[in-house]
């Protein structure tokens, strides 16, 4: 592992590399071959149900996430898409009263099995949050934090930091101020720092919970480019409010909706349709998907 693969693709980003990714953005990555079913699934959710106390938040979700694909979870607010995402690395454990039924498998192992360590799960399956949440430390220490706490064997931390920042397309902007506080960065830079921080622990899967919702359009486009670059190395699952974003970056899209309970009125999220992104947007099978995509509801 001498040079980071992303390095090569990041360096010329300002000339042609950027143009290509802009193009892919516009054309929905049409030339990419997306198989009918997720290839070599890294993660699967099987009959996943989530409860918060008595409240049934998510009902019977079945999904599988193909290796080195970007899967988008979309749907109206309250449809449980973020809840599903947080189940995938057991961040839901931290919510008081949350209960998960069904299975979430990672390389065939149920991560909710009794003997499974949620901490080990989170080192394999990283997460980027809605609001950039850098630690109140230097840029360098933000990156080094994950490897340090997980006891990762690191030959040279400086290299690892550089590699992670390269991987998040942030190196050129911050290489001269690694010791400065992460709070001095712009919102978009902070979010890329959070992505770099996640990359540094060498995860397999990266979950992103509306990573661009707090950012301006330019910062958003940079993160989208970054996701497309990262696809070669990671399996990415992203929750987004923004349908265009799903269309631009994802290979596969899962559309969720919320169904109110007849007696209580509590809205339970369920999966409506899961298909290649091109199909979801061009030729949805379900009427509810079509209504949502065409802006008739939600």
């Amino acid at each position, binding site marked *: 592992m001498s040079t980071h693969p992303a390095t090569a693709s990041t360096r010329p980003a300002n000339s042609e590399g950027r143009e290509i990714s802009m193009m892919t953005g516009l054309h929905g990555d049409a030339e990419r071959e997306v198989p009918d079913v997720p290839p070599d699934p890294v993660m699967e959710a099987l009959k996943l149900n989530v409860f918060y106390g008595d409240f049934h938040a998510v009902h019977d979700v079945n999904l599988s996430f193909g290796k080195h694909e970007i899967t988008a979870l979309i749907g109206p607010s309250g449809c449980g898409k973020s809840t599903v995402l947080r189940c995938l690395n057991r961040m839901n454990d931290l919510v008081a009263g949350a209960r998960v039924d069904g299975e979430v498998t990672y390389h065939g192992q149920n991560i909710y099995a009794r003997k499974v360590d949620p901490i080990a799960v989170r080192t394999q399956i990283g997460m980027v949050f809605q609001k950039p949440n850098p630690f109140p430390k230097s840029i360098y220490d933000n990156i080094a934090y994950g490897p340090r706490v*997980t006891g990762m064997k690191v030959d040279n931390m400086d290299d690892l930091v550089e590699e992670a920042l390269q991987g998040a397309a942030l190196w050129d902007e911050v290489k001269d101020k690694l010791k400065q506080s992460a709070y001095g960065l712009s919102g978009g830079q902070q979010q890329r720092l959070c992505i770099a921080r*996640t990359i540094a622990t060498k995860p397999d899967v990266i979950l992103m919970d509306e990573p661009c919702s707090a950012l301006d359009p330019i910062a958003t486009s940079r993160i989208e480019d970054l996701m497309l670059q990262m696809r070669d190395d990671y399996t990415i699952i992203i929750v987004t409010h923004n349908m265009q974003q799903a269309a631009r970056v994802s290979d596969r899209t899962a559309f969720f909706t919320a169904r109110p309970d007849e007696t209580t009125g509590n809205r339970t999220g369920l999966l409506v349709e899961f298909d290649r992104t091109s199909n979801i947007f061009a030729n949805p099978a379900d009427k509810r998907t079509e209504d949502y995509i065409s802006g008739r509801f939600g």
Partner: protein
Amino acid sequence: MSVATSTAREVTRTVSTGRSKDKSLGSLVFLGALWFSLFFGVMVLLVLIVDTAIEGSPRFDSALITEYGSRVRPESTGFRAGILGSLWLMVFTALFAVPLGIAAALYLEEFADGDRWWNRLIELNLQNLAAVPAIVYGLLAVAVMALMGFGRSGIVLGGAIALALLILPVIIITTREAVRSVPQEIRQGSLALGATVWQTTWRQTLPSAVPGIATGTILGLSRAIGEAAPLIVVGLAGSVRFDPTGVMSEITALPMMIYSLTSNSQEEFRTAASAAIIVLLIMILGLNALAIYIRNKFQKTW
């Protein structure tokens, strides 16, 4: 009249008069009342300090802090034993209360599952302990000392136990507040990287909360140093004529000496008590200033 209709009416009036409502008579009277509330306490404090300083001014001499108390020579009686006693008490109180208080607070904020009945019991209990009168902690300390086999509790250990019990809830509560003010996003970010709860607490939450904890602890100690009631119950002497030598040493404390002199009708003693009050206030103001400095200098706004 509902809030909604009255608000609507206000809007109509402002629009029609074109005058900012913040300048209306009612608003100005209200603001004046708030100003008065704010400065009333400060005025009292000023009067207190000036009055006491004038009364104690004849005794602003070195004997005040270097001499032991003397009934024979009231004009040069000093508070050496009380000042040293108070400092000793403060150090041991901190040693007992601070680690314990921070540990309890961290457990409650970062580890405890608030739905469990025993954790709810601790919660409820803490809320109650914070309101238990200081003097009751004196009675408790007497019992604790008796339990540990000490017949006499008017020593450094007994006083420090009483004061530590007294400020423990204060430290727990302020630590919890400081810890709670660290945003949830920071914890989630850390946990999502594979850190354990303790790693997250030790490396993220606690460092960010240190200024708040330090402020709370110092304020708690400054309360302890001025407290006399539990020390009376523990049986601290009103005056001793030697320096403390260890935890088993019999001592007095500055507020204890002031209390015992206040009931003395001799004019020289009242003058000495006034001067000693100024010394005590300087010690406490010093601690408060330190706490404020830490709060303003280091506290993060998220």
